[in-house]
């Protein structure tokens, strides 16, 4: 199957099965993009807008320095005030915070597992045509695999984080011992290795997600088999990944262009004093419409990408099975 054929089929599936859009929205809400956000995720408009402006760094640090003196004078007053609060109160607050964080992480992981499981299951049911697609059937697909998927999201991330810590500590050691050049080289190499590792894990995760959601495989087995699938189908995986990435970029840019032109038109009209105030309700409506349409478009792109991966997965696994049967 060529990428054009995959795209055509995915387009038809997403167009016909509007229920999947809701699950795309759910995945977007819970995880941003799910596993392999590099290739899976929707447009990164919000991330891009939120990026840090490095030009402001200088002025910010100058302001910070002047505020530091003031803060250091206030600090003793505040610390003496807070030290008057009993230790048990801090313990209760800490416990509350801990419960909220732990439960929040667990619930969000489970919800993410469910949403992704539903979306993947839904796309497979839609590809199979014979299965009925509705809220109940798609939601049931997620309920079968959410625990496995939650583990798949949690444990590799935990391992990755644990592996990263020694690297960071070593980098800090280099800087403390005044070996700045060595430190920079070490950090650069570390960053490169970690980026590649993250990319490989993310792409392997795309296959692993499907192995858990469709084949009900345990998460460890799915993870290693996902890596194996990535290795054996490297070219096809990368092809679809890059095309999906470009699709996301193009959609993001188009959305930004549409939003930008609308905002620019309104600003131009808003500059005329009499029209300016009259435009206020229109601007409010426009902001709401942009938010709704933006979320919908992002969810649609996400659903579309999940479907393209599901189509390729089906093709690859079917080809693999046929090969095995021939060998037998």
């Amino acid at each position, binding site marked *: 199957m060529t990428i054009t054929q995959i795209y055509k089929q995915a387009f038809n599936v997403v167009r016909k099965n509007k229920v999947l859009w*809701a*699950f795309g*929205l*759910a995945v*977007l*809400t*819970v995880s941003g993009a799910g596993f392999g956000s590099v290739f899976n995720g929707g447009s990164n408009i919000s991330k891009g807008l939120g990026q840090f402006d490095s030009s402001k760094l200088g002025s910010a640090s100058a302001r910070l320095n002047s505020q530091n*003196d*003031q803060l250091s*004078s*206030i600090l003793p*007053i505040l610390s003496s*005030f*807070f030290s*008057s*609060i*009993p230790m048990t*109160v*801090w313990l*209760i*607050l800490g*416990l*509350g*915070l801990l*419960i*909220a964080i732990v*439960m*929040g992480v667990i*619930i969000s992981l*489970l*919800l993410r597992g*469910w*949403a992704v499981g539903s979306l993947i299951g839904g796309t497979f049911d839609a590809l199979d045509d014979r299965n009925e697609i*509705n*809220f*109940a059937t*798609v*939601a049931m697909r*997620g*309920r079968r695999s959410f625990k496995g998927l939650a583990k798949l999201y949690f444990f590799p991330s935990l391992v990755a984080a644990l592996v990263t810590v020694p690297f960071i500590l070593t980098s800090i050691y280099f800087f403390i011992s005044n070996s700045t050049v060595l430190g920079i080289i070490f950090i650069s190499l570390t960053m490169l290795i970690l980026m590649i590792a993250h990319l490989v894990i993310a792409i392997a995760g795309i296959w692993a997600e499907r192995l858990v959601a469709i084949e009900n495989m345990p998460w460890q087995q799915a993870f290693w088999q996902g890596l194996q699938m990535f290795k054996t189908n490297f070219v096809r995986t990368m092809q679809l990944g890059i095309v999906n990435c470009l699709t996301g970029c193009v959609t993001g840019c188009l959305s930004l262009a549409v939003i930008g032109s609308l905002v620019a038109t309104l600003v131009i009209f808003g500059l005329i004093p009499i029209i300016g105030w009259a435009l206020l309700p229109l601007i409010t409506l426009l902001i*709401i419409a942009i*938010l*709704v349409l933006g*979320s*919908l478009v992002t*969810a649609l792109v996400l659903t579309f990408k999940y479907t393209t991966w599901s189509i390729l997965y089906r093709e690859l696994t079917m080809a693999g099975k046929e090969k095995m049967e021939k060998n037998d």
Partner: protein
Amino acid sequence: MTKGTFWERLIARIIDDLLFSAVFLVALAFIGLTRPNLSQLTSSLLILAALMLNEPLIKIAYNSWLTSKYGGTLGKLVLGLEVLDENGKKLKKTLSIFRHTAGYLVSGTLFFLGYFWILRKDKLAWHDLMAGTVVIKKKPHRAFVTAVFVITLVTINIAALAGIILTFSSNQNLRNDVEGLVKSISSVEIDKPTKPTTLETV
């Protein structure tokens, strides 16, 4: 069996939210009644904050447990509504948790579109469609009971709010402590060397 309408379910939700806000405001009013100083108030507020941090969890537990045990939350019960599964029975715990977590998550996306779905003919929200549940009107003609509940809860909320304002504004201890703290912080700012004027710079 008639199904619960969008407006009935919305009122039920408002009653639940009023109940939660009443609990929070009454707790605050009680704190105010003890005439705390700044340190005591901060301690009480920190404990309250520890609870508030877990509010989503408490809400999930409240919704799931009451729905599986009694067929609905307080709001729904007041309006005579009951949540049933596809076999016409009360929800099992797992299904109830699913409905109130994953179901609400999907319904809440895209500006609560899944909730507005109840306005359609089948009167089913997205979380109903997903969990295979239906909200029926078990006891009709509950307008009077509903009105009494809503008025009572609104009154409690307003009274608690008024109590908070009154007790805190008349608490001289607290006022002295706050003024003392503000004064000591502002004195630090006064001690700070002032910015040189243009003339001095020249």
